[in-house]
């Protein structure tokens, strides 16, 4: 029993420090003003699908790399200048290539990526089908041809011998 209060105090401190550090982390996120909620929504959508070129497994909304902050600023600026979503995406692709898109576009370069898995599943299904059909044929063959009358007689004799 004496141990528990001793443990509880540091845990409580830990929780407090976590809460404090979380609010500190939030303080570093830049404040952005939006003319209306529609723009804000579009901003969030775009910042979610655009990928940070420096830290490759984060989108620009997640990343705190300076380049991601620049890209967020650009998206914000372009939105307020009245550009459409697809124009903003084109703007980014023109500078950073298709890499900035989390979802790569479908083109001859990415056919393998997009359709490869389906082709593999197809091949797997075909192989499975052929194997199963082969096995069925084998079992049918063995049922009809495996034992001739002579063999059957021999087997019966053997079984009889054993019983005796």
């Amino acid at each position, binding site marked *: 029993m004496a141990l528990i209060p001793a443990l509880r105090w540091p845990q409580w401190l830990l929780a407090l420090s976590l809460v404090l550090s979380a609010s500190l982390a939030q303080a570093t996120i830049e404040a952005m003003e939006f003319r209306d909620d529609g723009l804000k929504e579009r901003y969030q959508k775009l910042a979610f699908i655009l990928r940070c*070129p*420096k830290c*490759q497994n984060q989108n620009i909304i997640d990343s705190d790399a*300076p*380049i991601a902050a*620049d*890209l967020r600023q*650009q998206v914000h600026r372009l939105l307020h200048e009245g550009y459409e979503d697809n124009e903003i995406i084109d703007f980014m*692709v*023109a*500078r*950073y*290539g298709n*890499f900035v898109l989390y979802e790569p576009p479908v083109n001859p370069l990415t056919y393998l990526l997009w359709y490869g898995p389906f082709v593999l599943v197809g091949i797997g299904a075909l192989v499975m089908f052929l194997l199963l059909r082969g096995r069925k044929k084998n079992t049918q063959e063995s049922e009809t041809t495996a034992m001739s009358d002579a063999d059957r007689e021999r087997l019966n004799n053997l079984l009889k011998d054993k019983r005796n």
Partner: protein
Amino acid sequence: MKRRLILFIPLIVALVLGIFLWQGLKLDPRELPSALVGKPFPQFTLSTVKDENAAITQDALKGEVSLVNVWATWCVSCRQEHPELVRIAKETGIPIYGLNYKDTRPEAIRWLDEYLDPYRFSLFDADGRVGLDLGVYGAPETYIVDKEGIVRYRFVGVIDRNIWLNELLPEVNKWR
């Protein structure tokens, strides 16, 4: 006999896959293809680090095959790369233009005084707008720009002797 050969298919598949994966190990995922290769250098009007009244445009890059090197005083790898740029400028005479990226003028001037200045001039891109148009995602980056001002090559990272002789110089010579 035929059935026996079929048994080797998984081995072959595994070997082919292994070769591809082995090759994949050598690829650097941080190396992005530049969207700008084959396209004109983005338009800009910028001052230089040493002359805040200058108004230099993309036309200044035309005429000769040149290197455009993106650098900054806050960039540690740029410091590492710098002596090689000085050497290239001195020994080959290939024009090197700097793009001072998101930096302050006094610090940039001090840097050039201290570590020598290999650049014909260094464009001063304080807000990183031109860097963004170039698709810069981390200094140092170096671009090869041909006589017509078309971007021909992009190198991300520190240029050392080996990279210069085996990767960049052949590319410069290709466009001269």
